[in-house]
């Protein structure tokens, strides 16, 4: 298995990369290569040009700025995993990253690559959905920002034009005392999740939920916010089977059938995993407020 023949370009700047994108037909951007390289080796893609972003300057950074985390598109997953600000203020990202592939792939894999590849089961895609991250895109006409709710247009298809390049992502920060959990089911550690649940909760010391984000990954063609669950739990103080009942609505979410699992199984997992993630996130929320997990 060898990649098919292509012309290779390794621009040093973003504008050089954008210029190449505008002038070349059938070009593919190469970021960390953990998805594109296997696809090349298996000849699932046959680009005439590869534009390698690994030597482009200024695309790898993690900045903790005024209530948001700014991450350069070529930042390696490993650098996010080991980042102290991420661990302290975006802890769900650390928890999710430990389930992204393996050390060898996280050392190369980039956040921009993951988001643009847009696998509906990818952990980082779920997080961007849950945080409603903002993606910064550069093209011939300049720079624009895309909210993550509008970023996936179809299965593995981001809302960027063929001559545009993702340069960065912004994740807003939740309250310093928030609850979080990333829970997934996969057959082997490091595999893409069959289904996953990402939960962020804000609330008070009494356990009342004031803000919630619940994202189900691996279900449909793109990750989805379980908005019915979010609406059902905000303003409530969970007790008894509250989360279990609230998560039943996940069984109605659209799900795909594939070799890994039928739709009905994914819907079952969505209800179970979202409940587990909510319970874990709520326990952490109470803990953050100095209370004891119930």
């Amino acid at each position, binding site marked *: 298995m060898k*990649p098919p023949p*292509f*012309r290779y370009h390794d621009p040093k700047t973003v504008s050089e990369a954008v210029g190449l994108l505008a002038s070349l037909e059938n070009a593919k951007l190469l970021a960390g290569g953990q998805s594109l*390289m296997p696809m090349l*080796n298996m000849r699932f893609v046959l680009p005439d040009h*590869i534009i390698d972003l690994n030597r482009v300057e200024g695309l790898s950074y993690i900045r903790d700025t005024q209530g948001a985390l700014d991450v350069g598109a070529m930042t390696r997953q490993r650098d996010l995993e080991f980042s102290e600000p991420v661990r302290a203020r975006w802890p769900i990202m650390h928890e999710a990253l430990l389930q992204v592939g393996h050390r060898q792939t996280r050392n*190369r894999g980039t956040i921009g690559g993951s988001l643009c590849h847009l696998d509906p089961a990818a952990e980082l895609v779920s997080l961007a959905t849950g945080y409603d991250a903002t993606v910064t895109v550069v093209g011939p006409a300049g720079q624009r920002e895309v909210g993550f709710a509008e970023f996936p247009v179809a299965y593995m298809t981001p809302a960027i034009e063929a001559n545009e390049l993702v340069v960065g992502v912004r994740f807003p920060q939740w309250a310093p005392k928030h609850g979080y959990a990333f829970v997934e089911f996969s057959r082997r550690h*490091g595999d893409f999740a069959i289904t996953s649940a990402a939960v962020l909760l804000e609330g008070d010391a009494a356990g009342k939920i004031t803000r919630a984000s619940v994202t189900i990954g691996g279900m449909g063609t793109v990750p989805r916010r379980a908005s019915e669950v979010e609406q059902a739990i905000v303003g409530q103080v969970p007790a008894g089977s509250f989360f279990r009942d609230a998560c039943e609505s996940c069984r109605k979410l659209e799900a795909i059938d594939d070799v890994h699992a039928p739709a009905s199984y994914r819907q079952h997992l969505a209800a179970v995993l979202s409940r587990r993630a909510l319970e874990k996130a709520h326990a952490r929320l109470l803990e953050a407020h100095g209370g004891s997990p119930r």
Partner: protein
Amino acid sequence: MKETRKIAVTVNGKRYEDEVEVRVTLADFIRHQLGLTGTHLGCEHGVCGACTILFDDRSARSCLMLAVQADGHDILTVEGIAPSPDKLHPLQQAFHEHHGLQCGFCTPGILTTLIEFLRDNPDPSEQEVRIAISGNLCRCTGYQNIVVATLDAAKRLRAEPAQSQTNAAQRS
């Protein structure tokens, strides 16, 4: 349409300059052009981990990189792990003593993966070791002896940290 480039890489402390076709993977370059056949190719699409090398001290799958991407970078392969031709690295010694390999096909990738892992995490738990090698497939051992060997190697390296130096590190 055969585009080539001239590249310079440091492999196991030794500098190589060569001309490569741009579509050649780093794994094929290491094996076929440098003749370092210790790096093994199993699946060639990033699943088995046999081709793992250290790229600028970080483990990476060499089948998922292009040789041109290595221009100007530093690589460690399994050949560069032992401190000298007649002495094994403590990790290799532990694999030898604990029967941490049978056919040995996956071993180069597992050793390079663990060199990085033990450097970052010198006192791992059994569970952490199992997660560290989760990206490496072994079809002979059932992993048990690999885990035992790794924990023993970690103990030896903690006792004598100087031994963790690889041949390549001593040379450079």
